[in-house]
């Protein structure tokens, strides 16, 4: 991405801004930046909002933010790639986050994850080819009292086993892999 930015930035920016003027989500994002008075310190807050609106952070979006906050594109890209929470690739329809915190791990989260990987045919951090399921891992979601926990589409589900997790996924994939 760095290479593409340096060569094409001049032409890309007007195109992005023009594209942005027709997209309501960019307006919401800009309102959010305005709320922070286009403060450069608010970069992480702005990226949170952008990801909430768009689902992931694509190059054009990052350039748009860089332009509006008057930050170098490298700084925006650097921050977006530093933090695990931000994703530069689109996610699937459904997300399945397996907590791999210590408590979940000693209670068998690794077996749950292995079963899910086998079921979906993808590794943690990937999305299935049909764009249905994204399989992710979390460092610790703080649900250690009910370990092992898995988050299905934002819903924390307690005491998971390999069987329960695979069962849950059946409803999403529609067909077996």
């Amino acid at each position, binding site marked *: 991405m760095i290479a593409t930015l340096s060569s094409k930035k001049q032409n890309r920016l007007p195109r992005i801004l023009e594209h942005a003027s027709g997209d309501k989500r960019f307006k919401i994002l800009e309102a959010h930046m305005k709320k922070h008075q286009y403060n*450069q*310190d*608010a*970069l*992480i*807050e702005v*990226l*949170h909002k952008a990801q909430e609106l768009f689902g992931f952070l694509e190059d054009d979006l990052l350039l748009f933010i860089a332009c509006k906050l008057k930050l170098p594109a490298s*700084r925006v890209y*650097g*921050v977006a790639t*530093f*933090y*695990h*929470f*931000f994703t530069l690739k689109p996610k699937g329809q459904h997300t399945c986050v397996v907590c*791999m*915190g*210590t*408590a979940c*791990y*000693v*209670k068998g989260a690794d077996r749950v994850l292995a079963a899910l990987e086998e079921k979906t045919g993808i590794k943690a951090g990937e999305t299935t080819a049909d764009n249905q399921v994204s399989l992710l891992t*979390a*460092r*610790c*979601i*703080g*649900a*250690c*009292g*009910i*370990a092992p*926990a898995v988050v299905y589409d934002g*819903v*924390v*589900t*307690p005491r998971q086993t390999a069987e329960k997790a695979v069962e849950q996924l059946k409803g999403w994939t529609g067909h077996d892999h």
Partner: protein
Amino acid sequence: MIIDDLTEITEKELASRKKFTIRCCVAAGCVSSNSVGVKEALERAVRDAGLEDQVEVRGVGCMKLCCQGPLVQVDERNESPGATVEIRSVDTGPLYQKVTPEDASALIGTLQGGSSNLSQADPKHPFFAEQLPIVLANSGVIDPDRIESYIAAEGYQALHDVLRELTPKDVLDSVLQSGLRGRGGAGYPTGLKWGTVAKTPGTQKYVICNADEGDPGAFMDRSVLESDPHSVLEGMAIAGYAVGASQGFIYVRAEYPLAITRLQTAIKQAKQLGLLGSGIFESPFNFNIDLRIGAGAFVCGEETALMASVEGKRGTPRPRPPFPAESGLYGCPTLINNVETFANIAPIIRKGAEWFSGIGTEKSKGTKVFALAGKITNTGLIEVPMGTPLRKIVELMGGGAPDGGQIKAVQTGGPSGGCIPADALDTPVDYESLTQLGSIMGSGGMIVMDETTRMVDVARFFMEFCMDESCGKCIPCRAGTVQMHEILTRILNRKATRRDLEKLEELCDMVRHTSLCGLGQTAPNPVISTLRYFRNEYSELLVEDAYGPRRNGNGQCAQPTADSTL
């Protein structure tokens, strides 16, 4: 807002209390077991039974025994005349566990004298009886979404007393006298830290609350934020007054959405009542608090990295000194404390430094909240005085390993801590004793491991964590963790020799002494402590090198070696 307003709110709140209060846990652990559905079902059942004027269904914070959630407690109003504060003794009424929405009508039936066969937890069990709640005093009692509920439990009383009756120096003195030490893990005396920030000249100072609870296996701060957010706000405001800061930030993990919502509500309510903002309690003191949401980087729990992140940059640490107390956020003197530290402040001011320093051991005062998890019967939160023996926590309160298993080790301090073997369980839990054992107090996560847990696997698990979370700024941590992880993997795959183990120990030493920040300096701890107590588990996995007995065709020893030199 003046003191009369606080009293008025308290009186109104207490007068509105109905005969029965049904407390339903709506903290994250129970929410994931559908406690919100239970609460709605209970409200419906109360309406159906026509008991609205007698029963209040209240969503409350964590009731500690997370493994049995959703938890519901029924509290019958004690008609003691002259009660001026919220009744805190929550162990009076029956505590129902694993409640489902279907149980709601039966539960309401018991209020009218009916009987039920609902599963109950025993409030006299050591898990509850041995606790000494200070930080968690309001947790499970008050409604975290309503500031009135906090005020009725003596909330913001301490802030009032501080602003109207004490000088900043008085506050510093009482915090110093109380002997409170930082609850984030390192245990630096809080009073000294505050004193340094107060002494440093500067017109603009900041107070930051570190709520980036990154240690896997720790969820105390999350529970405090979800159950009693105002206690943290009050502690921060008092800190602001003591050190001369007018702006505070709470840096909270994005992984805790419920805590974020509760904090946003709490800040809004406090501003509306004038408990944050300008001229608090008609004094010249101004204080505002803003939230900063993290984005999933463990290293941001390190104070200098955290400040970089608050400034909207990559969260990489920088060398200290200068310490944040002298040059922190935006180059200004900055006070950084952990959630639990701030939550201790208001009780210290209210009840006095002597009261606080009377609890705990000689060097570690007060209580500590621990998150019990792993292979243990009762998982959840406990708050015990410092110096409580580990055995009491794990075996008496936690109920030991489930299904008759044998406890092998207790891991404290997350990836920066170590494993304490079962035969050292009689150690009292305080900062010094844990350090002596090669572990650390850490933020308070306690993971119990039983016979089925392989210690080398645990060491590799933590090393993988540190390798992934290393920010990459300094080489010992960036490259050292990768190499250590690689050796540990080879040991587990039975492909490593004695020489590899020696190299691993060398690397531990090197990374520990040459890394830039706490992450790297403590990353070898899980390896060092497991090597110290469970060395045989490592040596059992080693194969002989070219100078030892011959390998079989797979590059493995024909028999597991019992090398006496290891």
